[in-house]
């Protein structure tokens, strides 16, 4: 089994498959595994089975130890360049290219950040929310002194809190939408330190000669049109963009698998069945690459893919596989419920349905 991506979905799949004896190689383009997991320094939600109360980096470390114990090969600085017919892949490992043949392939390459262009967006000091996390939680440096956060989804409010923990000031959190997108408790944590929220506001401009020196925002009406005269200015040296994620599944498009447009899930995503298998036999997808959700759902999807692959390769018999899959699917139900999770759950259901519609 080859897995592209050593984030939560990929690692969970690798560990699960390896438990049953599957030989697994995980490729990751970064110089360290874990995807976005190691930047998550907050305690996860959910229930005990969802590893609630554990911090992201602790979960990441435990996956890595398990992977090591099960002799899963994790190859870093390795970019999967393409997936071809019959399970062939080309992988660029540092400066050489390897041709690999896999019986089953899992694409768990996560997502990339969206961006909104605005005057001044290219100025040094305008950074993605992921960059702010990387700088503070991986490299131990404050991205700036005073931050304006654009976007109030979970990424925006969680990263804002992490910026406060890093010792930065957060001047405000803004969102063009009329309501805060993230969890109320995440918003409450930063509101109680005095961070104001400006809903129905968008970023107008980042000002500065060689770097961000200030930023202005403007109110928008129900049709998202800026309302003149409602500009507000903030003296910040950093503008952090948290306007959504886009599934990074270009590798899958090479395989010719069925791709569906799902705005709820963040963009174009591959159809897949309950085993996380795409319309191309032997090619699986899990995690944000199959639709923007959370680390907890990525882990469960990864486990299901790992189990399915173990079964397909003959290491796990079907009745036991179905039993194990049922445990995972049941665990998923809780995460895809409630006002935040329900919409995602329905979108995922649609992906499963489009598989069944396939001739």
């Amino acid at each position, binding site marked *: 089994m080859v897995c592209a991506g050593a984030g939560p979905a990929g690692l969970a799949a690798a560990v699960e498959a390896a438990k049953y004896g599957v030989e697994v190689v995980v490729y990751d383009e970064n110089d360290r595994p874990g995807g976005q997991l190691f930047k998550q320094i907050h305690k996860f939600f959910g229930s005990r089975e969802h590893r609630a109360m554990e911090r992201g980096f602790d979960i990441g470390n435990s996956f890595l130890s398990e992977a090591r114990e099960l002799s899963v090969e994790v190859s870093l600085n390795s970019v999967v360049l393409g997936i071809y017919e019959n399970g062939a892949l080309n992988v660029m490992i540092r400066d050489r290219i390897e041709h690999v043949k896999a019986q089953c392939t899992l694409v768990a390459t996560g997502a990339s950040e969206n961006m909104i262009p605005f005057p001044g967006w290219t100025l040094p000091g305008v950074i993605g929310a992921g960059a702010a996390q990387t700088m503070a939680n991986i490299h*131990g440096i404050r991205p700036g002194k005073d931050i304006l956060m654009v976007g109030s989804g979970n990424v925006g409010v969680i990263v804002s809190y992490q910026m406060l923990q890093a010792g930065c000031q957060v001047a405000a959190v803004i969102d063009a939408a009329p309501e805060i997108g993230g969890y109320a408790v995440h918003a409450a944590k930063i509101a109680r330190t005095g961070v104001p929220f400006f809903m129905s506001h968008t970023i107008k401009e980042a000002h500065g000669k060689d770097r961000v020196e200030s930023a202005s925002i403007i109110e928008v009406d129900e049709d998202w049109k800026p309302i003149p005269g409602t500009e507000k200015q903030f003296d910040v040296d950093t503008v952090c963009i948290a306007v959504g994620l886009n599934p990074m599944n270009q590798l899958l498009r090479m395989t010719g698998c069925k791709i569906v447009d799902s705005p709820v899930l963040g963009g174009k995503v591959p159809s897949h069945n309950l085993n996380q298998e795409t319309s191309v036999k032997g090619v699986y997808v899990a995690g944000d690459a199959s639709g923007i959700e959370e680390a907890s759902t990525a882990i469960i999807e990864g486990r299901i893919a790992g189990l399915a692959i173990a079964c397909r390769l003959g290491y796990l018999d079907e009745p036991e596989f179905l039993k194990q899959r049922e445990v995972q699917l049941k665990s998923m139900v809780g995460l895809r419920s409630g006002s935040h999770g329900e919409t995602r759950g329905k979108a995922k259901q649609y992906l499963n349905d489009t598989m069944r519609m396939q001739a």
Partner: protein
Amino acid sequence: MRIEEHPILGVFEKGPKVHFTFDGKTMEGFTGEPIAIALRSNGVLIHRYTAKRNEPRGMFCAIGRCTDCIMVVDGMPNIRTCIEPLKEGMAVETQHGNGPDLSRGKP
């Protein structure tokens, strides 16, 4: 800029302290950390100027994907400084446009 003690992560483990130069000026950083991080800790945010309009650019994604942070390092242009590890004695320069032309046998 550097976080001394993080409430959750504690003290950040860094390699040995090293010296490098930025546009000829000597600066300090830690072995193995991305060049861009060492620069930022010294207050440097501008990494390059664009070819057409000579506009300043710096780190944006911090994970080696957007290439806004590229600089000339030890004479080589287009180095993604947000993922390139710092080494003792490195010479880091602001990249102007496409940087130095290293092609040989020009027509």
